């Protein structure tokens, strides 16, 4: 009865809602407030980064500092910060020039400066000077010394600064960096300021390291929780979408403040909820956010849009970091817990990494610097952006990644090896050593690289280093390394002029190969020679040890007897002299002689004679041991 009543009530309720819908007009589809792809600086969608903006502004006010670098991963919001600075600094009475260096890598310096001049002239409403007749930095100095810059400054924002670092345009790049460092930055530090944006770590930007190290730097990282919430709630500003607290919590769990992914997720939800006509402003519950990552289809939906950005982020990681990231992504499936370095290494072993190269061990630090993971060795590491972790888990499984990236690591190691071969042929030993060390760092089982490194050290005359390399090689692959190590040690033994050193080399050889005939022979010769010298110097213990090492037992007995004679022979001689002396006295007993009792005379004479006989040496050593 109750179920019928409930059904009837439900029908009436649906009819009521339907009749209301028919009467009401649907809402106009509002504008999606989330911006994906374009820079949001200077607009209402720009959120957070107050610390960076404040810091940059303060730095730019400083008379000593005129160059700042902003660095962070792709799609983290660097261009938006530059654009926000462009707007903000303009309000602070600065003239701001935004200059994108993308696509200018191959352009000669003259062209780049000409375009910059044109941009500055357009901004300052000036006539473009003939830059061929005047040097750019001199012209710029004259511009900032004009009256309108008495109380203001000119700020040039260089976006995509690292795109200048193209392998096919090294000369143009070096010329540009040199010009910046030597000519442009020192022009007028108080009036002319520069901000550079790069999409990688400063330490990875080797070619510009000298330039960048003199600048203050700001890491553009993830947004904090408050900023993320503000970003999510952008839709509430134009009354297009309301967010429940639980939905915001879930988005934070998934994106952890990654501005691009947060906007992408919010935008996708916006599109879904406004796909059909609406009669009221939707409120986003947690389950709608959860649905985005609940099934494969929906994941594809979100990741289908984010895939290029995520793929690019992935491509930017070195091979070892990709392996570690895939391993961390595996772990987090077990729950959102931190993973220690030890667990990571064990997991890699279980998945078929034959040997954990140093690259893999140091990769967590790089991943942390790059905002992929957080934590430390003590507390363990965990992924920062859950959405990225899920994408890695889905698209870059550890097994496949291992196969591909380990292969790549080996290819890179081989490239280093080839570079080293060329450098070695050109007698550029240091360059060859550097390349070979890199090759071994990437692949600790790279036999040829060890062999080549030892050879380069030998050719360079650094034998101690060569020995260290060969011994390290031996510890990793004893069977492969033994012959080269022994050959090296034998050469050292042969070339040594000092018997003691020679002996040490031989003993080292025998520790690796106890059957080495030459080393055995040479060692025996040296030991016998040493033993004789010891014997001559009456260092019998050492002599006996040397004979023992040389395997000469009869010689040991002989030396032992000699030692005994040397030690107790004086007493024997003295005693014999004493006895021989007192025996005639005891037989003849000459009492009348100078009224001294015969026994006293006998004792005195015996002691004297015995002492004299005891101190007479048989021979004296004139040899010196070497």
């Amino acid at each position, binding site marked *: 009865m109750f179920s019928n009543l409930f059904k009837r009530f439900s029908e009436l309720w649906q009819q*009521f809602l339907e009749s209301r819908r028919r009467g009401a007009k649907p809402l106009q589809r509002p504008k999606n407030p989330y911006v*994906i792809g*374009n820079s949001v600086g200077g*607009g209402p969608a720009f959120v957070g980064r107050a610390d960076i903006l404040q810091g940059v502004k303060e730095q730019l006010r400083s008379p000593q500092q005129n160059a700042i670098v902003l660095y962070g991963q792709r799609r983290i919001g660097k261009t938006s910060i530059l654009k926000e600075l462009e707007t903000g600094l303009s309000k602070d009475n600065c003239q701001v020039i935004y200059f994108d260096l993308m*696509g200018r890598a191959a352009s000669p310096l003259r062209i780049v400066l000409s375009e910059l001049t044109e941009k500055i002239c*357009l901004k300052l409403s000036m006539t473009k000077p003939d830059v061929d007749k005047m040097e750019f930095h001199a012209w710029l100095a004259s511009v900032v010394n004009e009256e309108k810059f008495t109380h203001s400054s000119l700020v040039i924002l260089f976006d995509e600064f*690292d*795109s200048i670092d193209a392998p096919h345009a090294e000369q143009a790049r070096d010329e540009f960096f040199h010009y910046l460092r030597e000519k442009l930055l020192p022009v007028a530090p108080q009036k002319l300021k520069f901000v550079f944006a790069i999409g990688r770590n400063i330490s990875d930007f080797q070619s510009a390291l000298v330039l960048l190290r003199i600048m203050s730097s700001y890491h553009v990282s993830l947004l904090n929780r408050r900023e993320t919430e503000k970003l999510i709630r952008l839709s509430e500003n134009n009354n297009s979408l309301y967010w429940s607290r639980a939905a915001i919590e879930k988005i934070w769990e998934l994106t952890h403040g990654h501005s691009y992914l947060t906007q992408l997720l919010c935008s996708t939800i916006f599109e879904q909820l406004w796909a059909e006509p609406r009669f009221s402003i939707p409120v986003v519950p947690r389950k709608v956010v959860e649905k985005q990552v609940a099934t494969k289809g929906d994941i594809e939906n979100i990741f*289908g849009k984010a895939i290029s950005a995520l793929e690019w982020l992935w491509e930017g990681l070195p091979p070892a970091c990709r392996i570690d990231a895939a391993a961390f992504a595996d772990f987090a499936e077990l729950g959102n817990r931190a993973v220690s370095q030890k667990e990571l290494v064990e997991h890699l072993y279980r998945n078929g990494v034959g040997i954990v190269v140093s690259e893999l061990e140091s990769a967590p630090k790089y991943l942390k610097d790059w905002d992929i993971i957080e934590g430390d060795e003590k507390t363990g590491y965990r992924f920062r952006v859950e959405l990225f972790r899920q994408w890695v888990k889905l698209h870059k499984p550890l097994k496949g990644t291992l196969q591909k990236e380990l292969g790549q690591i080996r290819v890179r190691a081989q490239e280093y090896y080839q570079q080293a071969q060329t450098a070695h042929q050109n007698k550029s030993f240091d360059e060859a050593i550097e390349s070979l060390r890199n090759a071994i760092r990437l692949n600790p089982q790279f036999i040829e690289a060890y062999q080549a490194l030892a050879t380069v050290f030998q050719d360079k005359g650094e034998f101690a280093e060569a020995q260290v390399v060969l011994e390290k090689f031996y510890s990793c692959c004893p069977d492969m390394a033994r012959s080269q190590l022994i050959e090296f040690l034998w050469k050292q033994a042969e070339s040594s002029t000092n018997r003691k050193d020679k002996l040490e080399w031989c003993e080292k050889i025998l520790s690796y190969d106890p059957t080495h005939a030459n080393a055995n022979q040479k060692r025996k010769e040296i030991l016998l020679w040493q033993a004789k010298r010891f014997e001559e110097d009456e260092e019998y213990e050492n002599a006996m040890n040397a004979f023992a090492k040389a395997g000469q037992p009869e010689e040991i007995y002989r030396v032992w007897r000699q030692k005994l004679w040397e030690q107790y022979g004086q007493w024997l001689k003295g005693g014999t002299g004493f006895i021989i002396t007192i025996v005639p006295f005891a037989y003849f007993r000459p009492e009348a002689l100078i009224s001294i009792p015969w026994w006293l005379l006998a004792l005195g004479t015996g002691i004297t004679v015995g002492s004299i006989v005891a101190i007479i040496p048989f021979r004296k050593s004139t040899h010196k041991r070497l």
Partner: protein
Amino acid sequence: MDVFFIEVLKWLALGFIGIFIGMFIILSTPPSAETTVTPEKRRNFNPTFPLGREQKIRQLADRIRSGQSSIIIGLFDVEKTELLGYLRNEEPQQQEMLYGEQAGYLTFSYVDISELNRECTPAQLWERLLQPLQRHAELTDAYQVCQTHKFSRNSIDNLISELNRSGGRLVLLLDAFQEILKFRYLGEETEFFSTLRTIAASRAPSPLVVVAASSQSLDTFYSATKHLNPMGSPYLNFMEGGITLLDSLPESEVDRLLSQNSVPIPQSIRNQIKQLAGGHPYLLQIASSMELWKEGNEAESAEKFESVFFDRVKHILERMLTSSDSRSCQALLAVIAQQDVSGFEKELDYFEKQGIVAKDSNQWHLRAGIFRKIVENKPQHAWCQQPVKD
């Protein structure tokens, strides 16, 4: 006890009455007039065209309204061209329907990249793209500066900034965008792409919006242009937020669309359409527009249908197959011939999204049966000539 029970019932009744009154007040109140959202008046898209793409058009129009760029990726060139045509249709009512109050501020520039000379330089291409801005009197000076400076990046930026100041927006509709990689000066030089990115992506909303139609994904563009800019951001990453895949429709949606056809389609023909056209709206649209069943009996129509449909789509599908890269083509041929498809997962996933193939109990099979007839039409070695794209 009785008194207490009656008292509880009384309060419960009062509670229910309160809830009912509250709900009645809430439901009878119209949506707040204070919100910025006004009643919908432009949701009534043309139901006949483009079939099944209403939501995609709405998304694209929204991206244009918010000054953001998009890329349309799909199998059929004609469908993409029709979609771009729909977006730029200058009929005021449709413009108003799509872009609301911004309709009057949009300037469209449609260029079919495949029709341009492959020797075209970046400056010539920009000149062609910016041509419609010549109509704007307030931009005359800035346009002349562009011409003087041979459409340099700064001069184009200046022109677009002028357009922005006047409240206008240029929408570049670039058809057959994948062809741009074959251009001598565009595929091998950075100037065009970097200028496009700098101008289109550095503002929000941007006064320069790009809507590109391509048969290739953004990843393919990234791979093809990575050597030009190995350390920088991808040139076209500003389109990432607006990837519009012209994919297939679910079975239920196909049924709904076929049942809503202006001329009712008999059930047997509907089944035949589904078997031949699969789930791709463009093929469905061609099939459902033939109206063979209008005259004659159902059995006769069904007989005729297959051959007429084949004639209509033959060239489109042949072109699609021959312009696909050899791996994609091989994957499709392998499914048709029921051969081993291992190693073709990526390609088949794409065709599945397009409604051409489907996967049931781990077995791939052809969903759009017409492809079997197309492939049978030529010897096997005549297909799959294009090199692999990436």
